[in-house]
């Protein structure tokens, strides 16, 4: 009898790549619901368009590279990139904006660097930053939360996908914008004068961030990543904002809660910096990576030119990841300080 010969181990745990990616997509749901609730159905079209374009780009590149389409498309990685891009850009964006973002994410940031797992930069963030720099007007106009203005209906949202104008019906400065532009107001006044602030960190934004936090905790529970990155980032951000809170004076940078729950903080902490390909490798490395992202996010938010900074901070740290890796190779079994 001729026997089949395979290399050990002959067993495998079934959490294949497609499952991992599906779990990431599932974890996005609470945040998405909050986004849709507060910013309207535009979010849905963003999502559909971004995912569609991302898969399209992926398929094209795979075909060009001569890869088996069915096998490689079924890993869901393009969908995850598309979804992350979709929740980063303002709702009611025109289709071509989304397409450019998806193109840069998938073709340039992912495949030009070798494809899945070999991208040194976070693909969704590359797409986002390219759009932010090229089309600042489109990218800095966020819809007003539904409590303060009427959000467009489904049809209107669909139409905005094809309009060339940025959607300015009811856009409003985000709390981060307001914080940046604050000229000498005590925080209590600032909050009181601008309804966008809601109770802690921005109407709607608080819930969106809580949603992403919930999804993130679920992924942590599923062991899709370790706690080191998110904890590093949130801790650094919290510590810095506490240090410079200055009791809510006119020079205050905002409270820790404000920084944790506004903008893209939770999305960044649980969905972006946990991208393993572009992050650091060891646990210590991830802790450092997260902490440095946190520091950068705070610095750019408070002293830099942009109101939010997760994308820039992440891309900058992506540069440093190999360097961090170089110095944080874990000690193998049997070395003095690896005792349990």
């Amino acid at each position: 009898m001729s026997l089949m010969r395979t290399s050990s181990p002959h067993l495998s745990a079934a959490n294949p790549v497609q499952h991992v990616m599906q779990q990431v997509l599932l974890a996005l749901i609470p945040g998405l619901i909050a986004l849709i609730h507060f910013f309207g159905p535009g979010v849905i079209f963003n999502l559909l368009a971004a995912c569609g374009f991302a898969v399209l780009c992926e398929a094209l590149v795979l075909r060009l590279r001569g890869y088996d389409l069915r096998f490689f498309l079924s890993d869901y990685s393009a969908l995850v990139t598309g979804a992350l891009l979709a929740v980063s850009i303002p709702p009611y964006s025109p289709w071509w904006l989304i397409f450019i973002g998806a193109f840069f994410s998938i073709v340039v940031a992912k495949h030009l660097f070798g494809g899945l797992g070999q991208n040194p930069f976070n693909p969704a963030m590359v797409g986002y930053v390219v759009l932010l720099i090229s089309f600042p007007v489109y990218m800095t106009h966020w819809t007003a939360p539904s409590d303060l203005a009427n959000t467009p209906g489904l049809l209107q949202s669909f139409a905005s996908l094809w309009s060339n104008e940025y959607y300015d019906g009811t856009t409003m400065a985000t709390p981060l914008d307001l914080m940046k532009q604050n000229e000498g107001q005590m925080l209590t006044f600032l909050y009181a004068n601008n309804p966008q602030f809601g109770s802690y960190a921005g109407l709607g934004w608080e819930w969106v961030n809580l949603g992403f936090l919930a999804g993130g905790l679920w992924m942590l529970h599923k062991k899709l990543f370790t706690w080191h990155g998110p904890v590093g980032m949130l801790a650094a951000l919290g510590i810095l904002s506490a240090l410079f809170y200055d009791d809510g004076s006119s020079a205050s940078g905002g409270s820790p809660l404000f920084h944790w729950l506004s903008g893209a903080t939770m999305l960044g902490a649980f969905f972006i910096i946990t991208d393993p390909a572009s992050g650091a490798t060891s646990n210590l490395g991830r802790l450092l990576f997260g902490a440095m992202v946190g520091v950068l996010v705070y610095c750019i938010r408070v002293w830099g030119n942009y109101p939010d900074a997760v994308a820039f901070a992440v891309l900058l740290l992506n540069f440093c990841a190999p360097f961090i890796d170089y110095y944080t190779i874990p000690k193998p079994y049997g070395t003095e300080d690896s005792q349990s």
Partner: protein
Amino acid sequence: MTMAEFFLNDLTQTVLVFLTLGGLFGLLLGYASIRFKVEGDPIVEQINALLPQTQCGQCSHPGCRPYAEAIASGEAINKCPPGGEDTIHRLADLLGMEPQPLDGEHGIEKPKTVAFIREAECIGCTKCIQACPVDAILGAAKLMHTVIAQECTGCDLCVEPCPVDCIDMIEVTTNIKTWGWEAPENDDIIATDRMSDKAA
């Protein structure tokens, strides 16, 4: 233009500053390179360490070391057949050159062999002993000779001189003790192949 104006001229000033700085740094670096010189192996030693030490002379030098010396003084790095592409790549790395394909004039890369003397036929002429560059053959005049297989580099040099042709070069084959796993074939290709196999 007065002297003062000349020196106050922005452009001139900048150029001067950079020249001075450049000079200073140059001096500093020059000093440092002498003061903190790293005592590395001389280049000949480093090259020799990469050569396979077969001592076969196929590079048309009487041994690996002489070839190492020749490389150090500019000879091509692709003349060593026993070392093959591997050695060429490592030499290219060391010397910061482009690797070249093996120069066919000096022979082709062959699997490693060891010499074996059919002892019944050996007449004890000692000719092979004189030819062996690494003293891997044992024997005395009129007495049977034998090859110490562990010491033999497989250089072939003892085969020619044997008057009764009793030396064979035997290919070194893998046995159960020297066998080792091979890496999986390129997984990208395998993956697609398998998938299309399944589809077919």
